[in-house]
């Protein structure tokens, strides 16, 4: 018995609770994601939701493991990335190692290299300093 070993080229990821200042029911997150995938001419796959009662990003890490090298990962916002430094670094390292391109729709940002991921990290840290 095997779960699928076929690597994914596209994936999207959602939260079923508030992220940053936003809350959107899952089905409306789908609508935004589907629209973005269509605009970018990417093959839409149903988004996977994070486990609501942990802050360890277990589903996000799982998705990254399933993604192919140079795949595309689409998130609604940078607020879906954990703000705990150690965990975020671990996630960004995994993404960079696989050269995955991560799209953040609300902020209109795309990251695919060290510099771009580091910019996003700084933005998350900055927001934490300003709004806390």
């Amino acid at each position, binding site marked *: 018995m*095997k779960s699928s070993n076929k690597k994914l080229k596209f994936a999207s990821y959602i939260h079923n609770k508030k992220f940053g200042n936003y809350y959107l029911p899952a089905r409306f997150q789908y609508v935004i994601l589907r629209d973005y995938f269509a605009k970018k001419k990417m093959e839409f796959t149903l988004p*996977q939701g994070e*486990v609501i009662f942990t802050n360890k990003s277990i589903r996000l890490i799982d998705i990254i493991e399933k993604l192919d090298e140079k795949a595309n990962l689409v998130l609604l916002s940078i607020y879906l990335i954990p703000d705990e430094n150690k965990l975020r670094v671990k996630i960004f390292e995994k993404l960079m190692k696989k050269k995955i391109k991560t799209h953040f729709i609300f902020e209109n940002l795309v990251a695919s290299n060290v510099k771009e991921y580091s910019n996003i990290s700084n933005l998350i840290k900055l927001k934490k300093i300003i709004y806390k």
Partner: protein
Amino acid sequence: MDQNIKELIKYGYFKFKLNPQYQKKNLKILRKIISKKIKAKNLEDFHKICHEKDLNKIRLYIFSQINKSKEFKKNLYLSSKKFIDECVGNEICTSDINLSIQFPNDSSSLLDMHSDFFSGESLFQINLWTPYVDVKKTQSMFIINPKTSLKIIKNIKNNKNLSFKKIFEKNKREIKWINVKLGEAILFSPNCLHGNVVNKEKKTRWSTNIRFKNIFSPYTKFRNEKEIGNFYKPYSLKGITMFNLKHNFNEIIK
């Protein structure tokens, strides 16, 4: 205690025979909807006549049609009413009806191991899972019993370096595939870990699932749309609830 409830508590599910009158009605509705898109003689051989790239479009079409049809949900409920009542009572709300069509060897529509409350659904719902063909092994769904599920989920909550892949590999032996014949269904607690893998059988799986929940049992503690009027639609209100909706005694005791 009723034997079905004993099984639900021990294994997380029980299997039963659907009321044939309503089950046949739904099979007819389903076939009629499908026939508007494609000529399918045999549902389990659907992969032979439908191209993989068209599958999602057809699935979405059927999904919207069965959810538009009040008749389909009514028949689902009536085909299993006695058993649903045993689990959640008869003053209930329901989710939409989900539809799954799983071709052999298709990895595009998999549902990884999960519990439904991972996305903030209520702990107090029952899921009616109905196949429209005979299903066995990987063509079906799997479930992990409640005791083991809880152990694994506690581990997910507390362990930083855990992945679903590791969990799946480690707990393969705990997985129970549920073989179900056409005309039967299962009611299961989606708190138990469940999901599917690539269908390694030679036949297509057709199934629906729908959640039933007592209107007055607890909802999630998280603020999201998994609440009454949104994810859960009121389905059968009883007399005293209708009485209190009509007369606002509720406003006196706030």
